[in-house]
């Protein structure tokens, strides 16, 4: 579970979807259900966190040295 932070949004929401589907299936033991629920809630938080990143991403320009420069839209 130490790898949780490494999950991309795609992986996280994919896993969450999988877990919800599993939990919605019949014949899930209570222990497993609790596991699913806990992991699912963590994943849901992760997804929400990824989606609610507060820092604004700035567009960059790839310069001739293959480095990223800040990019300013002309006319703004």
């Amino acid at each position, binding site marked *: 579970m130490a790898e949780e932070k490494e999950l991309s949004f795609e992986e996280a929401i994919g896993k969450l979807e999988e877990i919800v589907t599993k939990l919605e299936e019949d014949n899930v033991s209570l222990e497993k259900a609790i596991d699913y629920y806990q992991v699912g809630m963590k994943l849901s938080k992760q997804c929400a966190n990824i*989606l609610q990143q507060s820092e604004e991403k700035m567009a960059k320009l790839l310069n001739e040295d293959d480095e990223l420069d800040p990019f300013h*839209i002309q006319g703004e």
Partner: protein
Amino acid sequence: MRDKYLTVSALTNYIKETMERDPHLQEVWIRGEISNFRLHHRGHMYFSLKDDHAKIDCSMFKNYNVRLKFKPEDGMNVLIKGYVSVYPRFGNYQLYVQTMDPDGVGALFVAYEQLKKKLEQAGYFLDEHKRPIPSFPSHVALITSPTSAAVRDMITTIKRRFPIVDITIVPATVQGEEGVPSIVEAINRANTIQGFDTLIVARGGGSIEDLWCFNDERVAQAIFNSSIPIVTGIGHETDSTISDFVADLRAPTPTAAAELVVPNIVDLIEKTYHLETRLIQSMRALVHDKKERYAALTKRLDYFHPEKQLAEKEQMLDHITDSLHRFVTLHLERKTNELHQYETKLALLTPKKKLNDAKDRLERMNKRRDDIVAHIVREKRHSLHRLLDKLTILNPLQTIKRGYAVLYDQDERIIHSVTDVEIGDLVDVKITDGIVKSEVKKVVKTKEEDRM
């Protein structure tokens, strides 16, 4: 006149020079149909241009034909500008072609169709070559002019939809002579830099010539070879470039490409929320189910509690005992009834009456017998009296009474005849009042007629 004979070369050169001095032949505008087209491996083109009545050999050298926007083919009607000259070696005149355009349709159109056909046949447009576009990219590269309105539109669109994605502009010249190598280089650079999930190759609207870079085979090749998925957004909705066909996904405009490349964050927030809701609800439902199942099982278990079982068995025992009791009583009653019935029947069948009857009959018969016997006795007595009377009369003793005697031998047998005695025998003479013991002295036999 000393030497009025020309060499072949001299004549040919003369003809050549004459032709080359003629301004009409040095700038010829001509239309016709291509036939016998050959592309020499060194790059020069050779063909005939003809109409219904004539034909002329044509050469188009490499330095001219590299600028052709289409590939000449047999049967193609073309418009040509060139000059006429002689090829001394074969001694024939030729049209040296400087420019050539398709007659009727535009050269660009023909070139476009030809490249499209070529790449299509080579399989460049096949779905199996299309790379999937990541649903949630973290870093998108825009290959376009950094000064264009298109780049502004794309950045705005991407930020609005998915503000958490990194955007990098890989600058490229997207029109003119430098366009093709610039775009190719930008695509290749983007591929060498780590971290891009998706590339957008985009250019705003313009004339077909403006967009022509994107119909170049080299650009198409670069797009095809890219290991990063490419979405194109070139020109307006109506424009379809070769690059669009080769791209992994084509959008009608740069803005549309930006929309296809990133998801809408609002949808994702909703989706996440929806999944979380489902998670919570299904967990709740599951716990509820388990609780209910637990409750039901407890109830069932309670049912099987030994005390309850015992009580139930006790009750059952009572019930069975009662039943048994009822059964026995009933059976007994029935048997008693049966017994009574048999007794009644037996009573009806008893021989007492017969016995009584028989007794009666016996009595009657006894009485009757007694009567008969009495009667017989009376009769017999009566006849006895009569017989006694008679006997009395006949009794020898009576006779004796009257004076007669009876003679007996010693054995008390009556002596009937004189032959029964001999002289000397002792005989008893019975008379009425006793016996006279006598001895025979003499026997006299009477005659027959004198006998008693």
